[in-house]
């Protein structure tokens, strides 16, 4: 285990050296490397609205920086963005910046020597602290490095179909489902009334990221904002974690949440009355269904303004393969300025990670009241922990959760204990 830590340290040191020497045009120092300018390539996600914003902001930049042209591209196709980026790092074909970094994947890319610590820029930490405030702390590496810029979040809430709620005899304007018991009772009502095949249809598949859209938001809400890992230890093997596992297990056991993956968009087709979703869902379902949002439930119920949830953030990272770090840094600052964050919010409805969103963009929220709840929720979010072996840790957790909660093959206390041990073992490596 110590050997792996040593390797990680050596990779980090080599990456820093390369960032300094490789790009410095002979300068041989981080400072020189970080001021090198020139054309760069940037990747955006394939989300239609995000890509449109990315191309627009790039076009604006290129008008004023003829000698530092930025080429905007979609992340290459792959099973996931993370796999495409991992392959690009290994092959040395990563762009300068990627605007779709999962906080769970960043630690392993750091370990690969693929990311640049933004603290090495003279104004790096100052700029990022000014933009994101205390929220920045959740995205720092274990040694305090800044390998990702917290960019935007999609705070997870419960989206529901108002028409299906009406059919089930639930008041769509005041569903009153803030406790586990009330949520389960309403779910049973939805299915038994024939309003929908499923009350809520969390994906029962085994991908490592699935807990972020079932267990984790509810656990964060239940604990009032506790991270999955605290002080190098798993936190979930306690009464709160057990309550959340039992809550989901009841939904599966009662048949109000199917154990099979939906073959199409269950929310869009009306097969499910609810889903966990962020503000991205508004643009996707507008005009298709009459929707509402409520905070995720907790065991005893909490008011909306005291409910925490999962941030589901996507961030920005700079890669060691970059040949013009200076341009990349300036472009990063340009695209995350207050003005361009506002343009991003306008184009996508996703929340830039900066405090006081409602005050910063009052006109937007006045014109788009659907997003107000998310803006408020954005200040009470928790992200995935920034730890090594993050993906492996989530995969192990998902496997144990599936066995106990979805398929009921392992008793919940045993599953929780096994998941805790597995997570602790991986963190300590």
């Amino acid at each position, binding site marked *: 285990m110590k050997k792996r830590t040593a390797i990680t340290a050596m990779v980090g040191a080599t990456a820093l050296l390369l960032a300094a020497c490789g790009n410095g045009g002979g300068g041989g120092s981080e400072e020189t490397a970080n001021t090198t300018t020139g054309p760069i390539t940037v990747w955006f996600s394939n989300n239609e609205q995000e890509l449109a914003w990315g191309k627009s902001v790039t076009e604006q930049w290129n008008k004023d920086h003829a000698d530092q042209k930025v080429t905007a591209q979609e992340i290459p196709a792959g099973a996931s963005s993370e796999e495409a980026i991992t392959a690009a790092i*290994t092959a*040395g074909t990563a762009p300068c910046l990627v605007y779709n970094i999962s906080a769970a994947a960043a630690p392993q890319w750091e370990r690969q020597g*693929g990311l640049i610590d933004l603290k090495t820029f003279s104004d790096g930490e100052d700029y990022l602290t000014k933009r994101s405030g205390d929220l920045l702390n959740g995205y720092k590496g274990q040694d305090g490095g800044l390998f990702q810029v917290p960019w935007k979040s999609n705070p997870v809430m419960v989206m529901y179909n108002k028409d299906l709620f009406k059919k089930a005899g639930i008041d769509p304007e005041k569903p009153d489902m803030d406790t586990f018991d009330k949520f389960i009772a309403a779910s049973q009502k939805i299915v038994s009334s024939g309003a929908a*095949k499923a009350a809520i249809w969390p994906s029962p598949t*085994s991908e490592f990221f699935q807990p972020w859209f079932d267990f984790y938001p509810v656990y964060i809400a239940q604990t009032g904002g506790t991270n999955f890992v605290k002080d190098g230890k798993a936190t979930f093997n306690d009464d709160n974690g057990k309550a959340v596992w039992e809550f989901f297990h009841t939904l599966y056991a009662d048949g109000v949440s199917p154990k099979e993956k939906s073959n199409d968009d269950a929310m869009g087709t009306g097969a499910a009355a609810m889903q966990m979703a962020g503000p991205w869902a508004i643009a996707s379902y507008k005009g298709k269904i009459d929707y509402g949002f409520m905070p995720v439930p907790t065991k005893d119920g909490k008011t909306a303004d005291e409910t925490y949830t999962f941030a589901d953030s996507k961030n920005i990272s700079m890669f060691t393969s970059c040949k013009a770090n200076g341009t990349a840094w300036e472009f990063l600052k340009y695209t995350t300025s207050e003005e361009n964050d506002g343009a991003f919010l306008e184009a996508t409805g996703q929340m830039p990670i900066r405090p006081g969103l409602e005050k910063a963009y009052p006109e937007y929220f006045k014109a788009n009241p659907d997003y107000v709840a998310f803006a408020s929720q954005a200040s009470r979010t928790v992200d995935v922990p920034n730890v090594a072996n993050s993906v492996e840790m989530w*995969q192990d957790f998902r*496997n144990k959760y599936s066995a106990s909660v979805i398929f009921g093959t392992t008793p919940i206390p045993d599953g929780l204990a096994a998941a805790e041990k597995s997570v602790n073992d991986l963190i300590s490596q």
Partner: protein
Amino acid sequence: MSTSTTSQRPPDDTFTEPQRSRSLKERLLGKQPLGLVFSAPYVVFLAVVFAYPFGLAIWISFHDYIFTAPNVSVPHPFVGLQNYVTALTDPAVLRSFLNTLIFLVINVPITVVLSIVLAAALNTGIRWASAFRVAFYVPYVTASVSLIGVWLLLFSQGGLINSILGPLAPDPSWLINSKLAMPSIAIYVAWKQLGFYILLYLAALQAIPKELYEAASIDGSGTLGKFWNVTVPGVRSATVLVLILAIITGANLFTEPYLLTNGGGPDGASATPVLLIYQKALQQTNPDVASAIGVVLVIAVGILSALANRVGGGSDDE
């Protein structure tokens, strides 16, 4: 002239000298050196695409290895069998090998029996033989992703199969039932691959002399007797090939557990070694443990293929 010719015949030594040099050349380049030129592209392809990566995977499996960005140089210390120990003490890995074994036990016999029976039936000149041939072959040439979409609709909880079965439908349904998930995949793969194996058997059936069937008829054999005593032994070499190919295909299962049972579900009941290699190497960036699983899988497939060859009597043909 004749005497002089006789006297001028070189002694045995001088006669054998050019033979020796020819055989050396032959030994190096073969009887037809041009063949080397023709086969070179494929040899290079094999070396680059199979031999080198396999050699590298073996090397990685004995070292502490991570993928790094180019020019990032890190030590890859030799760790002996540590990666193998990590892999083989992981219950998920052991479960995946057991799942593969379950798959092979179901899939291989179904594949061999159905393909030989159907090929023999098609070979007798039944009506609509061409239509049947096409029908059997279409799944083989169709992309697995599309077919899996169809099977999901057929075998899901509210799918066609369960609607037909009514109260007899399994609960939990096929693809989320830990006892039925792997058998479902085994049957799906047998159905998908059947066309190819039927084709192999049809080719092998052409090589069986008609006289053997006539002789069997004279001896009083019926249809079943001729099939058992003439057809089955007559296509033995094809059977060995089908066995080995079915084992290799089964051991390399990825798409089906990834898509049909949502990542090896339920609860790992259909996870396969290749699916775990994908997770560990590409998602979790642990290529060293993934390589160890890969090497174990190659060895297991090699042993099973050798056994199949021996049981099928394949070595006798050489």
